[in-house]
Each structure stands twice: as structure tokens, then as C-alpha cells.
């Protein structure tokens, strides 16, 4: 708490979060003005997409690049100063010590998120709409991400002799995630699987209002795994061979849990506009499809139509149906040149021994086709329940004094307060001269 890293990061966060919030609110206000003239546009105005995700975006960048320096300080200083040799002699297990350090990291994250929480509060004070489940889900996703970064930083501090080396190791993890995002996104097969290891992928679902059980288990196991590795490597008295052996066992255990996590398809759609779900009547009807559904897509993975299809149809089907297999039949094809021009763009649906083809990427056309394959009637749409949208015309300028003046001042005052000298108990200074 008294270290400079956390407070410096907080001071840097103020203008970053403040400017992101200002921009988001301004753009949202402009879009809302247009919605006043054309009410149909209002349904596209979601505070989650328009304000919360961009504001948390600035926090994400800071957590990725700066939070490692705060987190690794929890252990790095003790390694550098030699205090680790005192620490490991305290009457606690190493796992308890790492657990305490993780708690400290969590507290640091909670303090770090305060500028973003203040932005959410200001949005609410402006009269902006907040849907609690999707807002809390987003905060939860960022907290998982922050803890994962913290655990990686602790592991890096445990294996490194200096904080500088630990910082490089941690940034190698976080920045290589961006490389994975840019280089491998949209690639098929093994490359697609590798791209899912990117740390930034952990936030995507939460930013869409999804709470996926597999992802939560995966992040939790990765966080626990890095913390366990930190515990293995922390004690200076354990031989290198023993540390390596325990690490191999730990990595295997993490691998098993991650493999289980990838098989967990359960997820909860917490978005107010139910963007990750089909209409309620369709969801009810589709729940009756118990046989395997095989979908063969004749498109290149980077084709925007495939991305549309995935967002509008495939991901929603995978959430509801118990057995869905999606195959890309176009390995080697590209958008500009395919090996079979005629079939390119087709999507073939096979269910119960019957199949049908479509080129549509909209659920409005695909679902009737599936009902046809399953010989089911098309359900009548349920009345109501449409997302109304929440337009709000407000000036973001009003928030800037808080982020550029009052909040930094409050942080500096709190920093100063946290560094104040303690009150020395009277029995300590009796006969002891000045204090």
C-alpha cells in the first residue's frame, strides 16, 4: 500500500479512464441524438457496448501493461532485498504465503479499479442506464483477468532474481497475447486453438454479456496454477531438481483442468438485449433437438460472412444444443480465391439423416431450415421482450474535472495518508528517549 507503484498506476489510470469515458459518453450522446429523430435506432444503443466496454478498455490496457509492476512488487522486493529468507522462516506454509500475496494483489486490483467504478457511478448520476447483471459480469471478467495477471506476476517474481527480470517475464506473457490475437485470430485448426490461449480472449465473452462456465474454470485454474508454480519456486531451500519435478506435475494438473474447462459448454447470457441467445420461443423449441447437428461451412475463416454466421447463429446454437459439430470445409481457401467457387459461401446443416443448404447468416432464415430438418413446427414468436435501447444525450465534459482534478487529488491525499508515521505505543518509548 505504501509503495509508489500502485499509486503511480492509479494516477496514470485517472486521465486514461477519464478520457475513455469522456469519448464514450460523447459518442453515445451523438448516437442518442440521432435516435431521437429516428426512434428505430434506439434499440441499438446499449450502455454495455457504448460506455462500459470502452471505459473498461482503458483499464484493461493499464492492467495489462502496468499492473504486473504492482503485483510482482508483492514478492519481488522481498527477493531483491533478501527478506525472502526471513519470510520463508515464518511459521506459515509457502502456499499460505503465496495465498496472502494473492490477497494483497486482489486488494491492489480493487484499489486500481476505483477510477472505473467512479466512471460507472458518474454514468449512473448522469441518468445513464445500467443493467446490473451485465455490469457485474463485466466487472467479474476484469477481476478474473486482473487476478490472472497478478498470478503470472507472482510466478515471474518467484522464478526471477530481480524485479526487472520478473517484469520482462510478465510482459512477455501479456504482450505475446496481443501477438497471438493479431497473428492467429480467425485461423483454423490448431492455430485457432493456440489463439484461444491469448489472455485477451478471457475478456471477450464478458464484454458480450456472457458468463461461460468453461472460461471461468479455465481462468481460475490458470490463476491457481501460476500461484501454485510461484509457491513451488519460492522457497530458496528446495533443490532445483525437486522444483522442476513438482512444476511438471503442477503443469500436468493445470492441463487436465484446462482440458475439462474446454469441454464445458454451459454459459449464461446476462446481456440485457439477450444478444447471445435466440428469441425465447426459438430457444424453447431448439431445446427439443437432441440428435447431433453437423454444420459444414464452405467459407474461409477470415470471411466476414463466416464471422457473422458465427456470431448470429453458430455460437448461439452451440450454447443451446447438446451436440453440435461445426466443420470448416474450406481449409486452404481464401476469400479471394476458393478451390470450389460454386459451393463457396454455402452452409450445410445435417440433422437426423437429412440435410439442407443455405447461404444466409441470419437466424431468421437458418432456424426455420433446422425446424424443417427436425420436422418440427416453427414456434410462434413470443410477444414483447424486445430490447428498447437506452439513448441518453449528455455531455462528457462534465466528468473531466473529476478524472483530471478531484480524483488525482484524492489519490495523492490517500497516498500521503497511507505513508504517515505510526503512533508509537507508549510502552515502547518509556525509558527509550525520543521516538
Amino acid at each position: 500500500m505504501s509503495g509508489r507503484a500502485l499509486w503511480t498506476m492509479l494516477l496514470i489510470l485517472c486521465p486514461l479512464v477519464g478520457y475513455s469515458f469522456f469519448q464514450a459518453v460523447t459518442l453515445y450522446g451523438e448516437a442518442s441524438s440521432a435516435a431521437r429523430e429516428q426512434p428505430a435506432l434506439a434499440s441499438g444503443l446499449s450502455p454495455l457496448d457504448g460506455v462500459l466496454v470502452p471505459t473498461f478498455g482503458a483499464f484493461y490496457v493499464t492492467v495489462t501493461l502496468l499492473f504486473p509492476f504492482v503485483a510482482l512488487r508483492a514478492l519481488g522486493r522481498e527477493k531483491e532485498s533478501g527478506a525472502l529468507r526471513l519470510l520463508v522462516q515464518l511459521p506459515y506454509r509457502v502456499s499460505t504465503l503465496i495465498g496472502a500475496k494473492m490477497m494483497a494483489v486482489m486488494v491492489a486490483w480493487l484499489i486500481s479499479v476505483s477510477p472505473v467504478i467512479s466512471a460507472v457511478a458518474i454514468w449512473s448520476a448522469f441518468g445513464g442506464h445500467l443493467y446490473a447483471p451485465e455490469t457485474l459480469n463485466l466487472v467479474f471478467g476484469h477481476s478474473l483477468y486482473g487476478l490472472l495477471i497478478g498470478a503470472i506476476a507472482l510466478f515471474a517474481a518467484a522464478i526471477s532474481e530481480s524485479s526487472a527480470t520478473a517484469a520482462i517475464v510478465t510482459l512477455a506473457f501479456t504482450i505475446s497475447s496481443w501477438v497471438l490475437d493479431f497473428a492467429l485470430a480467425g485461423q483454423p485448426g490448431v492455430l485457432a486453438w493456440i489463439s484461444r490461449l491469448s489472455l485477451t480472449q478471457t475478456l471477450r465473452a464478458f464484454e458480450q454479456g456472457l458468463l461461460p462456465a468453461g472460461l471461468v474454470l479455465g481462468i481460475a485454474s490458470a490463476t491457481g496454477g501460476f500461484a501454485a508454480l510461484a509457491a513451488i519456486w519460492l522457497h530458496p531451500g528446495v533443490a532445483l531438481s525437486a522444483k522442476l519435478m513438482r512444476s511438471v506435475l503442477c503443469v500436468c494438473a493445470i492441463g487436465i483442468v484446462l482440458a475439462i474447462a474446454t469441454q464445458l459448454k454451459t454459459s449464461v447470457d446476462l446481456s440485457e438485449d439477450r444478444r447471445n441467445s435466440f428469441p425465447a420461443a426459438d430457444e424453447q423449441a431448439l431445446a427439443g433437438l437432441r440428435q447431433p447437428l453437423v454444420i459444414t461451412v464452405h467459407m474461409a475463416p477470415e470471411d466476414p460472412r463466416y464471422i457473422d454466421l458465427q456470431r448470429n447463429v453458430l455460437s448461439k446454437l452451440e450454447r443451446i444444443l447438446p451436440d453440435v459439430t461445426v466443420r470448416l470445409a474450406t481449409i486452404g481457401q481464401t476469400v479471394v480465391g476458393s478451390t470450389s467457387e460454386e459451393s463457396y459461401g454455402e452452409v450445410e446443416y445435417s440433422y437426423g439423416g437429412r440435410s439442407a443448404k443455405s447461404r444466409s447468416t441470419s437466424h431468421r432464415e437458418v432456424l426455420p431450415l433446422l425446424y424443417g430438418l427436425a420436422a418440427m413446427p416453427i414456434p410462434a414468436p413470443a410477444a414483447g421482450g424486445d430490447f428498447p435501447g437506452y439513448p441518453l444525450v449528455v455531455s462528457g465534459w462534465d466528468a473531466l474535472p473529476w478524472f483530471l482534478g478531484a480524483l488525482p487529488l484524492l489519490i495523492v491525499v490517500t497516498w500521503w495518508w497511507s505513508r504517515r508515521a505510526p503512533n508509537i505505543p507508549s510502552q515502547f518509548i518509556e525509558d527509550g528517549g525520543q521516538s
Partner: protein
Amino acid sequence: MAPLASRLPAPTGKAPVLLQVAAITKSYGEQRALADVSFDIQRGEILGLIGANGSGKTTLLEAMAGVLPVDNGSVIWRGLALSLVHRRDVIFYLPDGLRPWDDQYVERVLEFFAAVYGRSKSEASETVHGVGLAPVLGKRVSALSKGFARRLMLALALLTPHPLLLMDEPFDGFDLKQTRDIMGLIRRVAANGRTLVLAIHQLIDAERICDRFVLLADGKVRGMGTLGDLRVCTDLPSAGLEDVFLALT
């Protein structure tokens, strides 16, 4: 001249053996830091590990405390092998040159250690006054002089309840008067039943404070026993520790 081992005196048997160091060996790559080091520590004594810089004193203390892995050897506590995880139950090792948690206030560091080991405020206060830390309680550790930083470390060690304390160069950073005061304090600690192993390279200090000595050179034990025992070994009946040390190493 007879082999060194045969010239070393057997344990006197006057006090029960608290801890045995058995054949500890430690190498850093090609360099052997400790070679088959063995000796006993008797309950309530102040044992001095004596050797020049680089003789292996710190390595030996760290190996005994379990904060450094060894290639071979064991530590035996009252006849039973002491595993790594149980070392911290009976041994506390105070490293040399540490300035831990340097952005914290002295009072908070002491409070933390006192709380960890369940020490009452009066016990903590007694320790503070014993080592003369009261004037700097309100200072940050980073702002302490070398002498006060050393006193803080000593206070942390004294707040622990461990029956065996290992201290690396406990008198470094103290002037003559301060050294004498701290020696008096250490004697009182030993008189209260705790056992101390002090790694000291200043032979004059060692001769004043230690009951017995283990002489180390190049990672090997070159002699052990009381000054009287060592005089017998070296056939130097009126020699000081310095002469004995030079004769054996």
C-alpha cells in the same frame, strides 16, 4: 603430525547435544563451498563459526537453516533428522546485511514479527529497549543507519521463540561500546536457555563471546572445541584464538 581428525577433540558431553550437522556438502558448479562439514551444537551454548571471508560460514548457516539446498548431508535435532519444513520450527536464521521491508516503519516491522510469534506488547517493548531501538521506532527501515538496521535485525531474531538462533556477523556495523552492549544482551539470551550459533570473522569479538568454536577454511572444518581444546590441538598453551586459528588453517 597426526591427521587433523584425530587431533580434534571429541564432544565433551557436558551439555546435551541439541543439533548435529552431519556431513554437509555444497558446491556451486565446480567450486566446493562446504566439504563434508560435521559438528555438534550443545544446548545453551554460544558457538562461534570462525573463518575468513569466503570460508563457507554463510553457506553453512543457510544450509543449516534450510534456505539453501545442499548436495549432501543432514541436520539432526535431538537425534532425529530434521526435515526442511520443520527447520523453521526450531531454527531461526538471521542473515547478514539485510534491510527487509525498507519502505516500512521500524515499529510496524517489529509489530508484524511480534504478532506472527504471539509476543505480548511488554515482551516486544522489552526487546526494543534491550537492543536500543526506541529512538528510531518512528523511522522507515530505509532511513536507518547501519548500526540501527543491525539492531532491528537483532530485535526480530529475539522476538522469535526458536530454541536455536543462527546469526551471521551479528556485530558488523557496531562500534566497540555497542558491540559490548550487544554481547551482554546475547549472553543474557543464552543464559535464558536459547542456543546461539554466531558466524564471526572478527576473532577478537568471537573470543569474547563464544563458548566453543568451529574453525572453517575453504569449506572444511579445521578445528572445533573450546579455546582450551584448540590450544591443546595446536600445542599453543597460551595462544589466543587468532594464533590458534592461524595454526589450524
